[in-house]
């Protein structure tokens, strides 16, 4: 680029500021040498610099200041949050409604699997068992209980010891009183079973009994050598082709070791009519 009268102004400021390259500087000086009037124009321009008066200040700064609030998540963030919560609620509700999907973390995976054509058919064919709830089961069970033909008689323990026909309304196991209930009035024989964790007194229908009531009556006592936290009795009723079970937790035995008199238990469970017939 050759510096001439038409374009020298472009280089003048850089020349004054000292920002030209060596080549440009040489060209500029050559040009100025040829045009002394322009050289005179440039002289002293470096001194013509305005300086700001720092004492001129804007007085309205206080009006411009804004409150430094905490950053708001914004409407987008808020909408996202609401969507997230509603999706979670829907998922939980859906899981409760559909037992096939139990784990939320595998929902997507399961959905994808279920959408496969071969699996779709399987799912459609699959019959979800209409299992009754525990409450309903208990209700059915209660209705199936065979009511004793003879009325329940409550007698004092002292009377029981004296009588030959043991109809005991209460049972003492290691000094823990187990209240008698309607279940204990079943027409049944008694069998004892002892496992490591808990004591089961299994009462069966006479035809199923492996230990007769008489044999049980002859047994003296059992020593429990394990931690027995609960005593349970289980009654199996054999009604036609159907076996139903009733299991009931008795009161806890506080002492881990103790003597349990099966004789007393058996007497407590054996109905009067059975004993009398024997």
């Amino acid at each position, binding site marked *: 680029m050759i510096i001439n009268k038409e374009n020298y102004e472009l280089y003048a400021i850089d020349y004054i500021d000292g920002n030209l390259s060596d080549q440009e500087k040489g060209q500029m000086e050559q040009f100025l040498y040829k045009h002394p009037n322009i050289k005179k124009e440039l002289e002293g321009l470096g001194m013509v610099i*305005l300086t700001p*008066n720092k004492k*001129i*200040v804007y007085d309205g700064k206080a009006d411009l200041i*804004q409150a430094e609030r905490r950053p708001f998540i914004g409407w987008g963030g808020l909408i996202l949050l609401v969507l997230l919560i509603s999706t979670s609620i829907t998922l939980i509700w859906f899981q409760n409604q559909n037992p096939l999907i139990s784990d939320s973390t595998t929902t997507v995976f399961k959905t994808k699997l279920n959408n496969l054509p071969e699996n779709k058919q399987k799912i459609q064919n699959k019959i979800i068992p209409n299992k009754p709830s525990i409450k309903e089961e208990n209700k059915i069970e209660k209705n199936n209980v065979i009511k004793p033909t003879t009325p329940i008689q409550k007698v004092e323990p002292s009377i029981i010891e004296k009588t030959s026909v043991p109809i005991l309304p209460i049972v003492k196991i290691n000094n823990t009183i187990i209240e008698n209930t309607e279940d204990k009035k079943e027409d049944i024989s008694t069998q004892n079973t002892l496992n490591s964790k808990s004591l089961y007194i299994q009462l069966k229908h006479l035809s199923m009994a492996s230990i007769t009531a008489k044999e049980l009556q002859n047994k003296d006592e059992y020593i429990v050598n394990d931690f027995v936290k609960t005593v349970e009795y289980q009654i199996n009723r054999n009604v036609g082709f159907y076996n139903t079970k009733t299991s009931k937790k008795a009161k806890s035995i506080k002492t881990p070791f103790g003597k349990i008199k099966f004789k007393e238990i058996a007497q407590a469970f054996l109905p009067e009519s059975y004993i009398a017939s024997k």
Partner: protein
Amino acid sequence: MTPKEYNTCVANFSDGVYRFILKNLRHQADAEDVVQTSFERLWINHTSVSFEKAKSYLFTIAYRCMIDLIRKAKRIEYPEQLPEQEVLNMGENYAVKELLEKGLKELSEIQRSVILLRDYEGYSYEEIGKITELKESQVKVYIFRARQKLKSYIKSIEQTV
């Protein structure tokens, strides 16, 4: 930019914007209005403007507001004397400074703007070009001519004296 950074901008740049506009318009109330408008726009857009670019953004907005104001009002009528505050605050080089400040009225709008941005705020020619929407070469020429005019003004005053 956070609200805190915006407030830093108010503290650091409001005086500069105000001086720049005041020197151009020579009208205190208008200059204050331009500053207010500039910061108002900065606040509205503070989430999208970075703190590093806030100063340029402010001067660009202020410059455009000022041009709009000039075009609408056409009232750039400079008072014969500098504002009282300015006269009182002059330092050692009172004579030269005063002459240079007075000489500003001899400049065209664009010459005045670019030389003020250069000398007051120390912007590069490229930055001045962005603010004023001019090419860098144009900025250089305008500044060169502005300095020439100021020099001539001072000389003429000296000769008169």
